[in-house]
């Protein structure tokens, strides 16, 4: 109650809203997948739209090749579709999705399917637009600094063992909790923490100077 005696609603913390949104989102995924199980291909299209980005980005950072990442991502969704008749909403849809993606990503790394890792300035940027380098020393310098930083980050991630790499990517970019990562990697939560802390220790040694 404010000094004028009027009740004003207290602002909800943002994390509360995020939690509710997350729950709604998870329920929506399960609902859509159940419809796919019943033969509704349009619902599969909606699931594709909701999750293709995160799957492709995860696989891109795993294998560091756009073409391979998209090919693997297609395979992920193909496998989801193939398994539609046996789907049960016992686990989160995203856990299942990332389990398939991680499995394919780890296989790809093991099989050594890679294309050129280096992106030249003439190629598309990760935002999909061709990078324009304007005349003028400061912009060129900033671009070069950025390129060096990006290269170091990519190389640092690539230097991680495959499972540590997958754990870090899911933790950092997909914001999965330890329990979910454990479910994806089919290991215990303590094993995931061990993977992550070793990975971050390695990354601190390689990237702390970039601060």
């Amino acid at each position, binding site marked *: 109650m404010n000094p004028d005696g009027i009740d004003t609603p207290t602002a909800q913390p943002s994390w509360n809203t995020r939690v509710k949104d997350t729950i709604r989102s998870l329920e929506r995924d399960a609902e859509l997948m159940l419809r796919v199980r019943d033969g509704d291909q349009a619902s599969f299209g909606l699931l594709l739209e909701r999750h293709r*980005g995160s799957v492709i980005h995860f696989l891109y950072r795993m294998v560091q090749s756009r073409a391979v990442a998209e090919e693997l991502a*297609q395979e992920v969704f193909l496998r989801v*579709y193939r398994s539609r008749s046996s789907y049960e909403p016992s686990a989160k849809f995203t856990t299942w999705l990332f389990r398939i993606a991680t499995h394919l990503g780890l296989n790809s790394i093991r099989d050594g399917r890679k294309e050129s890792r280096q992106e030249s300035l003439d190629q598309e940027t990760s935002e999909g*637009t061709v990078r324009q380098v304007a005349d003028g020393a400061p912009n060129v310098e900033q671009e070069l600094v950025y390129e060096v930083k990006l290269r170091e980050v990519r190389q640092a*991630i690539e230097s991680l063992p495959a499972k540590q790499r997958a754990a870090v990517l899911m933790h950092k970019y997909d914001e999965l909790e330890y329990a979910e990562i454990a479910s994806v990697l089919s290991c215990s939560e303590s094993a995931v923490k061990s993977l992550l802390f070793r990975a971050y220790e390695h990354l601190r040694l390689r990237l702390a100077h970039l601060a």
Partner: protein
Amino acid sequence: MGCPVEDGTGAELIVAYGARKLDPEQESELERHLTLCPSCRELAQAQRAVWSALDAWPSIAVSPNFDQLVFHRIANEQQRTPFTGWLRRWLPARWSWRPVVPVGAACAALIAAFLLKSPVLQPLTSSENQPKLQIEQVEHALDDMDMLKQLGVESASEKAHSPEKI
């Protein structure tokens, strides 16, 4: 708050702090400790630097025809013939079945060549031709006979019309 690094909880707490995932109360308590503990402060700063560096790695743009390609693959799979489906079930998943088609065609060609040269088939082929040859021979013989007949008639008529020479 005790020292997280010393009491073994450091890694998880520092990682969460670096990711800005601590609730406000935990974060302020840790930051109070960081002002007093150089090793934790160094660790926390390094972790935040890592987090910030990882933020610099942007996502890629998804190909505009990605969904189309997925649905195309689904449609292809649904149109797969029973034979290729059977083949896929029995071949190891990592094998590609594509080489089977040219190999199968090569085997079929070899089998066909063998059968053509096989003595089992040859009598059939010669016997098929035999009636044809016989018919041709008969036709020729009949033609000859006609010709001979005509010659024979002419000579008789010639004899009939020409006087007998002494």
